[in-house]
């Protein structure tokens, strides 16, 4: 079991109602998003997101590491 801090941005933050939360989780990053999507009712499927761990882009198959900071990155719209 890993305890991680999850960051939410843009529409994910609006849906979650918080900018970050601490979560206890087993498995990989995809499983984590799937569980949180169900909990918060996120509209965006995993295929439309990227994921970052400790400020660096990561892969969905990566295992969740205890103590890490995980950010789900919805499609960007800067510029």
């Amino acid at each position, binding site marked *: 079991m890993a305890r991680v801090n999850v960051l939410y941005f*843009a529409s994910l933050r*609006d849906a979650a109602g918080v900018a970050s939360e601490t979560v206890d989780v087993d498995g990989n990053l995809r499983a984590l998003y799937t569980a949180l999507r169900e909990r918060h009712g996120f509209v965006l499927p995993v295929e*439309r997101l990227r994921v*970052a761990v400790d*400020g660096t882009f990561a892969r969905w198959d990566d295992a969740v590491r205890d103590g890490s900071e995980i950010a789900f990155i919805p499609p*960007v719209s*800067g510029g």
Partner: protein
Amino acid sequence: MTRFSLAQTPIDTATLRAQLLDDRVGGYASFEGWVRNHNDGRNVLGLRYEAYAALAEAEGAKVLDEALQKFAILDVRCVHRIGDLAIGELAVWVGVSAAHRDAAFAACRYVIDEVKARVPIWKHERYAEGDAGWLHPEA
């Protein structure tokens, strides 16, 4: 010296441009994105940009490093606003200096395209009809 920055306050393009002056420069290309009063057929009253700051700064710096590798340019900078912006305000600035204009234009275009595609910044628009929303464009 940081080539890519996020700015909480209005961007002074004259000072940014001056930082790229160099006796070897023959061509300077720049691009600016301004807040339009419309988007996809809707009237926009104003908008807000939010970033995942740590990752945006790292990814923005990476885009500029790539531009320096790919094109025969002397220097390149980019600044992106975050926070609340009014219509007509500057949202993003890119400046490129090079000996020749081909490389300056190509690198400038590369940077704005990659920043828009990759850097974790999100736009929240407020519309004349009273609603508002985050933009999450399809790839």
